[in-house]
C-alpha cells in the first residue's frame, strides 16, 4: 500500500476531517484514510478507536476547562536547598506526542506518588506504564531522545559505554545515555509516537483547525489506548514476575538486584495500602 505522503496533506486532512465529522455525528466507526505504514500499534489503536458519546461530554468539559500549565514561574526567592543548575525544561525538543499537552511533569494529584512518578519520566516513557496492551506481548528497550534504538550486547541489544557521572561501578546508573528512556516495543515497532512522525504532524494540524467538539472527539480517540492509572510500582520493582526484563535492558546482577528489591517501592506500597501515615522509622521494615 503506497501512500503519497509528500503530495497533498490537504487531501488526507480533508478526508480525515470528514471522517471525524462523521464520527461526531454518529458513533459508527469510519474508515480512516490514514494508513499506518510503520505498523505502530498506538496509531493503529487510535485509528480503530470508537468514540462513545457518553464520554464525549466529559471530554468536552475537560477541553473547555483546560488549565494551562507553565511556563514555570521563577520566584524571586530561590530554594534553600540546591537542586541542579538548570530548571527542568517544560517543553523538550523533539519529544514525544504526549508531552505536547502533558509536559514532562504530568503527575500532579497523587500526593504520595507524584514526585516519584515524575522522577521516572527522566528515563521511562509515558507509554511504558500507561499503554493498554490488550494482551499484546510488549517488551521494553532503551531509545534515545530521537527514538533511535540503543542496542546492547545482551539479548541482541548493545549498550554504549557512555555513563552519566563519575560514580563507582556499584553506583553506576543503568541509563545508557543522558536522555535515554525505556519505551515499549511491539513486534519490533516502537509504540511511542514521536513528534517527527507524520501522524503527529497531522494531528497537530487537525487540532489547530478543530472546534471544541472536534477536539473532544480527537482527544478521546487519542486516549483510547491509554489507561489513566498506569502500572503500579511493584509491577516492575519485584523479583518474580516483573514487567521489565532487566537483563535485556542491560542491567548487571547488582543493578538488577537493587531495582527488584527497591526499598522505596516497598515502602510506598505500604503507604498506599494503609490509611494511616507511615512513620519514617518504619522505612526499612
Amino acid at each position: 500500500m503506497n501512500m503519497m505522503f509528500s503530495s497533498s496533506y490537504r487531501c488526507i486532512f480533508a478526508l480525515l476531517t470528514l471522517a471525524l465529522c462523521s464520527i461526531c455525528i454518529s458513533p459508527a466507526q469510519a474508515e480512516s484514510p490514514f494508513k499506518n505504514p510503520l505498523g505502530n500499534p498506538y496509531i493503529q489503536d487510535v485509528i480503530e478507536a470508537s468514540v462513545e458519546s457518553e464520554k464525549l461530554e466529559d471530554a468536552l468539559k475537560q477541553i473547555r476547562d483546560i488549565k494551562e500549565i507553565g511556563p514555570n514561574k521563577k520566584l524571586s526567592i530561590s530554594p534553600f536547598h540546591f537542586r541542579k543548575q538548570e530548571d527542568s525544561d517544560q517543553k523538550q525538543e523533539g519529544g514525544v506526542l504526549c508531552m505536547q499537552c502533558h509536559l514532562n511533569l504530568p503527575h500532579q494529584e497523587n500526593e504520595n506518588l507524584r514526585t516519584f512518578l515524575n522522577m521516572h519520566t527522566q528515563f521511562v516513557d509515558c507509554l511504558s506504564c500507561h499503554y493498554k496492551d490488550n494482551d499484546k506481548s510488549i517488551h521494553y528497550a532503551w531509545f534515545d531522545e530521537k527514538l533511535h534504538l540503543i542496542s546492547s550486547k545482551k539479548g541482541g541489544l548493545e549498550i554504549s559505554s557512555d555513563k552519566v557521572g563519575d560514580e563507582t561501578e556499584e553506583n553506576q546508573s543503568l541509563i545508557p545515555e543522558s536522555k535515554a528512556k525505556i519505551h515499549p516495543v511491539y513486534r519490533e515497532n516502537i509504540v511511542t509516537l514521536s513528534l517527527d512522525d507524520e501522524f503527529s504532524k497531522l494531528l497537530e494540524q487537525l487540532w489547530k483547525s478543530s472546534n471544541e467538539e472536534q477536539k473532544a472527539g480527537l482527544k478521546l480517540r487519542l486516549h483510547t489506548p491509554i489507561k489513566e492509572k498506569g502500572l503500579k510500582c511493584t509491577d516492575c520493582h519485584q523479583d518474580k514476575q516483573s514487567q521489565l526484563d532487566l537483563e535485556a535492558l542491560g542491567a548487571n546482577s547488582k543493578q538488577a538486584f537493587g531495582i527488584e528489591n527497591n526499598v522505596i517501592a516497598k515502602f510506598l506500597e505500604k503507604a498506599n495500602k494503609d490509611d494511616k501515615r507511615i512513620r519514617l522509622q518504619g522505612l526499612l521494615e
Partner: protein
Amino acid sequence: MQKFRYALIILSCFMFLSPFLIIPTMLDSPDMCGKLCMRRFYLYFASMTWDDVLQQMSVASTGVMFMGLILITTLFFGRLWCGYLCPMGGLPELVSRLFNDRMKIDYRPLPQTQIRYGYFAVYVILMPSMGISACTLCNFITIPRIFEAFSGGYRGFAFLVSSVGLVNLCLLFLLGFFANKGRAYCQFMCPIGAIDGLVNRAGAHLPFSRRIRVQQERCTGCKKCAQVCMTGSIEMKDGIAIVDQFSCMSCYDCVESCEWGAIDWITKPVNYDPVRKKKGVEFFPTPEWTAVHPDHALLEKPVKLLGSMARSASFSKATNVEGSNSQESEKIEKSAVVEIEPPKKAVRKQSVEAEKGISGRSIAQFIFIFLLTGSALFFGVTQANAAARNIDPDGCLTCHALTGLDYIDADNVLRSASINEKHYYSSLHGSVPCLDCHRETRSYPHKVENTEVDCAASCHVEEPSEGKAYDHQFVVDEFSDSIHGAGWSKGFTGGNRLEEIETEANPSCRWCHSNTLYIEEHKMALFKTEMNHTDEACGNCHQGEVWRGQFGGHILRRLVGARWDKQDTVDMCVECHDNDEHLADVKQKDALSGEEHPVGKRYLGAAQSYAMTLHARLLEANVEEGASCNDCHAPTGYHHGIHEDEKPESPTHIDQLGKTCGAAGCHAYAGAKGGVRFSQTDMHDMSWLMPNPLEDWEIEDFRSSAWNWAALVLIPLSVFFLIASFYWSLFIKKKPKTIYSRWGGEKFKTMMLGMKNKAKKQAPKSAPKKSKPKPPPKAKPEPESAEKKADENKETPDMDKQKDNKPSGEQP
C-alpha cells in the same frame, strides 16, 4: 589703571575668599570647583568612561559655564579674568609688589610658554591616564585655604600643614610672593591660565579682539614695556617689542610705561606690516634682554636677515651720517652673520632583528614546562574516591537524594524534593542532620505544617570552641529589630515561597540566604588559584570530593576572605531595591504621625544614585576600596541591623556618620571635628540621576552652586563691559599721544617716522633766505637763529643740536 586693577583684585578676594566669602556664603561651598573639589583625588578611577567625564562636567556645569564666560571675555578683551579679577593670581602679585625687587626671583628668562604648556599637557593628559589628578597643586585650593587658616577655619589649617599643603605653600612663596612681579604661578602652573592663553593667542588675529599690541613703527626698542611687564610676555625681536599673546594678561602696565605710544590695548591695527624707516645706525646697543624663545627667524632664514642687514649697511654707507659708526655697522654686520647650525636630526638606530628559529634555550624551556605540567597532571589525576561523610541518621536522603523528584503544584510553581547529596554535605549546613531544622517531620506523606523551619531554632551541632548548641537567634534578634523586621524568620516551607512573595514586602532570611557551599561556585576557581595546592597537597590523603569541598572551603574561607564580598552584598540588596515593581508595594511610616505613606523618589532612586558614586564604581571594577550597602547601613554586629536614617542608633544617622565613614579604616578623619562636611556628603545624590530639567528643576538646584551666584554677578558686569567697549571703539576715538622726540623734532619726524613735514616744504624757501642775508645782515640771522634755537630748545636736543651747533659755531 593699576590702582583700578588692584582694587578689583582686592574686591574679588572679598568675594571669593574667607572670611568674607561673599559669593560662597550664598551657598555652602567655598571651593571653586564645587563638588568636584572634594573628589580631586578620585577624579580619575578604574573603569572610567567618557560618560563619567560628561557626568563630572555636568556636576561642575556652572563651573564649566563660568569657564566659558572667562574664555569668551578673553576672546574679545584679552585675559581680563587673569589680570583683573583672579584672586589666586592677583593676591600673590599684590603681595610681591610689597617687596623690593632685589628679594625676588626673576623667572622671566625661562621659556614660559614651553614650561606652561608642557606642564599643562602632563596635568591634563599624562596624569589622568595614570589615574592621578594634579588638582592638589592648584592655587585654587591653596589661596582659599590660607585665608581659611587665618580666619579660624580648621580645614584650611589642616590643609596647609599637610604635605600637599606645604608643597603648595612653598610654590606659593617661590612662584608668587617672591617672584618678580608675582605672577610666576600663573605663568607656569595655572591650568585655567593655560587654556585662557590659548584662546588669547587664537583670537589675537581677529579684527574685533582687543589685545595689547605693539605699533611696530613706533617702537624704539627702549624695552621699558618688557621690563615692566608683569607676565614677561614682551620680548624684543630685531629691536621691536613683540607681545606673546599666550602670556599677556592685558594688565596695562606696559601701555602706561611706553613713552612712544607704541603699545596699546587695541583691536588689530589696520597697518599690520611694519613700515619702519630705520637708519642703518643703532641708536643704542642691541637690547641685552633677549627673546624668550629662540629666534626662529634667525634660524630659518639667515639669508633674509643678512639681506636686511646688508641693506641697512648699504644705506648707512650711502648716507654716511656718522663716519665713526660705519665701523660699528661693519661689526654689526659681521656679528649678524652668525653661523647657525641646523638642529641635528636624531639618528635612527637600526633595530636588531630577532633571532629566528628554534634555539636550544627554547627547547629546554619546552621540556621543563612539559615535565611540570606532566607531573601536576599525574599527581592530580591519580586519586581514588573515598566514601563521602554520611550524617543522615534518619535516612531522609534515601528518597530525597534521588534526582528528578519534581512536580508542579496548584500555583504553577515548580517544586522539587530532590536534594543534591554531595552538595549538601559540602555546604554550610553539611553537618546538620535534616531533622534538626525540619523538626516535626515524622511521618510520610509529610504534612506541610510539620516541615516548617525556624531559622532561630538551635540545632544539635555544637559549636566547637564552647560546646554550646549553635543557633541563629542573635542574628534573628538583630534582624527583627531592623527596618526589615517584618520579614519572616520562621515558618518556612518548600511551598510557601509564593505566598511569602505575594504577602510580604520585607525580605525574610531566605530572600538572601540559601544553603550554599562554603565558597560560591563561581568563586571556586579563584580560590583554588589562591590556594592552589589543596587538590594535590590535602587531596593526596583526603581524597573525597565532599570532604575537600567542606573542609577545604571551611579553611579557605577563613584564610582568603569572607564568603560574600562587597559586590555580592550590593547585588543582593539591589535585587529588591532596584526593582520598581517590588518597591511599589513598600510603605513607610512617617516618623511623627505614624501614618503609612508610599515611598518617595529618594528611596526609589537609592540604588541608581548609589551606582553612580565612586563607592559603587570601584566595586564594579573589582577594586575592594569601594563601599557596599552594608558598609554604611549595617557595618557593625551581624550586619542585619539596618535602620532608617532618623533613628539615633542608625549608622546613617547624621550624628553617627562620622564614625561610620571612619570605620574599617576608610576615612579615618571623618569623625574628627572639622570632618562634618565630609561625612555629610550625599551618597544618594539625586542630582546624579539627571532628572528631567523641566519637570524637576527646583530653586535649590540653582542656589546650590557657587558658580551660579558668581555668574549672576559677573554676567551683567561683562555685558556692561561688552557694550561699553563697542560703544567706545565705535564712537570714542582716542587722541593720539603726543610724541616726544629726543633727537630734534622735525628731523626725527621725517627720518624716523616718515612723516611729511610742512617745515620740509618751506625749507628750500627758507634756505635761500638764510644764504642771502648771511653776510650783510648778521643781526638778522641772529634773531632768526636765536628763534630757531629757542624753537629747537623747546624740543629735546641731541643730534639736531650738533647740526645746529656747527652753523651756530660759525656765528660769533
